[in-house]
């Protein structure tokens, strides 16, 4: 890909220490990922099998897709706790449409469309009515999943067409799954969007100081709205992949996923208070979480115990820089 000649380098901050620290953050993540990879390879002889590794990517691909958009949202100083519920509502909508005989293309459009609509509703609450995003999306989390429960109750939808299964179970090339390929493409798109466009710069500006950004001509509300819609859309796409992979829909689908997505984003070095973070960091964090889950799974460690590792990792990774800072003082 050839980029247009860069005109002039304008540094983010006058003192480069922040940038340097950001760089070392991603290096740290890379080192952690490499260490876990090596440990896993030594601990289990089955780890390095390409099909096993390809299977392992399912641990994080769907969550990582949402994490891409969530990273932008958190950098802009907002948060969306309703993504797990959006997955459920989109999945229920696809299931209901299938009962009416909708085919694969229609199902995908419905899943993504419901996600986009849910995101737009969140955006309306936050950007339109000015509600704090954390409580607004706690509310829509109950509302969206509540609607899914009203429609489906304790039942389940199934009977998806065979061609629909490809999104969650298909392979693009060799052992590369469709989900992984899609994630890679989306990561590049989001990377360029955040780090290479005016839009991306404005996201950082809003996250650092929304008032100052508004006074410098950034359309704060429109960008917030766009970011919520993007997050909803990604949740809708993730719902298509997850529903296709599981082959059935229950209203509890994707329960608690919002917290895993946020963990991924924060682990990736995005400041929860907004204003900083990179797509590369988020993708490395996704890889780390996937590797941990897969490696511990091979060692027969139950899922709940894996979550302890993720929790400790999350806290230590944000506490470590602060601890070092204190010790230096």
């Amino acid at each position, binding site marked *: 890909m050839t980029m247009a000649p860069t005109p002039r380098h304008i540094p983010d901050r006058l003192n480069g220490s922040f940038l340097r620290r950001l760089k070392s953050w991603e290096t740290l993540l890379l080192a952690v990922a490499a260490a876990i990879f090596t440990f896993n390879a030594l601990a289990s002889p089955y780890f390095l099998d390409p099909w096993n590794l390809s299977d392992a990517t399912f641990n994080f691909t769907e969550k990582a897709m949402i994490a891409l958009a969530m990273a932008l949202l*958190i950098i802009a*100083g*907002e*948060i969306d706790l309703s993504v797990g519920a959006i997955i459920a509502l989109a999945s229920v909508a696809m299931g209901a449409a299938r009962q009416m005989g909708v085919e694969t293309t229609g199902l995908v459009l419905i899943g993504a469309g419901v996600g986009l609509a849910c995101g737009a509703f969140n955006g309306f*609450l*936050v950007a339109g*009515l*000015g*509600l*704090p*995003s*954390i*409580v*607004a999306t*706690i*509310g*829509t*989390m*109950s*509302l*969206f*999943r*509540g*609607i899914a*429960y*009203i429609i489906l*109750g*304790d039942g389940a939808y199934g009977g998806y067409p065979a061609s629909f299964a490809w999104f969650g179970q298909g392979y693009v090339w060799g052992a590369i799954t469709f989900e992984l390929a899609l994630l890679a493409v989306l990561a590049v798109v989001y990377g360029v969007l955040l780090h290479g466009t005016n839009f991306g710069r404005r996201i950082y500006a809003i996250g650092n100081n*929304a*008032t100052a950004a*508004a*006074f410098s001509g950034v*359309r*704060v*509300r429109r960008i917030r709205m766009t970011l919520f819609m993007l997050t909803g859309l990604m949740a809708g796409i993730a719902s298509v992949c997850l529903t296709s992979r599981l082959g059935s829909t229950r*209203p509890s689908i994707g*329960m*608690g996923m919002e*917290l895993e997505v*946020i*963990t991924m984003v*924060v682990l990736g070095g995005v400041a*929860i*208070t*907004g204003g900083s973070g990179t797509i590369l960091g988020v993708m490395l964090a996704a890889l780390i979480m996937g590797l941990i889950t897969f490696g511990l799974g091979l060692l027969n460690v*139950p899922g*709940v*115990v894996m*979550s*302890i590792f*993720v*929790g*400790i990792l*999350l*806290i230590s990774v*944000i*506490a470590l820089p*602060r*601890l070092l800072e*204190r010790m230096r003082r």
Partner: protein
Amino acid sequence: MSALLKRREFLLFLAILLLILLVRARFPSFGSPANLAAIFHDSAILIILALGQMAVILTRCVDLSVAANLALTGMATAMLNAALPGIPVGLLLLFAAGMGMALGAFNGILVWKLALPSIVVTLGTMTIYRGSIFLLSGGAWVNAHQMSPAFKAFPREVVLGLPVLSWIAIAAIAVFVLLIGRTALGRAFHAVGGDEHAAVYTGISVGRTRFWAFTINGGLAGLCGYLWVSRYAVAYTEVAQGFELDVIAACVIGGISIAGGMGTVAGALLGAFFLGAIKNALPVAGISPFWQMAISGAAILLAVAFNARAERRKGRIILKSAQSAAPVIQSSGAAS
């Protein structure tokens, strides 16, 4: 009267009254004193947790780990009881509250000493505590027959017409009325959440205040851990999973501002009671319980939209001309 009407707590009280009267019009058994006492008993744990969470939210933090704390402490208490059935309930209560406090204090230390954002800290400890239940129990359940009769009977013993669980909730409300309204710590909760910098200049340690909010909240969560496990007579890894969001929802409906510094004990109580009333009204009115989640979601959104109007007056714009020239903006954002 008009001053009373402006108070959110009073409006919420009217909303609950309206809800009860509406259901009562069709189903006269609903809303009788005995039925109200039953709803209060049913919401007691939510009320206690909402009070603790209120203290944390007042200081502009949030504790997502309460439900995991409750479940871990509940499991530890149940296992202790199963191993040593002779331990008196009083000691178990102390153990549960103490263990909960320790778990809450761990959150508080991280928020205080390392100045980490509370939402990230408690997101982490939530998964750590939840996973620890599995480590502790090996995934096994503690069932009713393993618990001593006294262990199970305590919360439902009737004293002066109300079960002990209800009395504990009433005691918690009384303590919080005194703590928030009559002590320096209570004022500090408001001060820290209202304006961090002003609080520092007043001589209040922001970190230490938050630490105490987390510790108190943890203690209540631990106490509720015993109450929950004893009331339902079973302890397992997924106890109260996702309950932290119900607790936060109760606070938000009660008009406690997630931006810190605003909220009352009455608000937390009414918010929790409102959710409890809805939960109890649905089966009476013959509505599928699957509606409950969507209704509480809609209630949260209505409450937040309503509260946002009152909060928007916060802060003052010094340069009026610049404000009229600039686009309208709202300073919303993820909580600290």
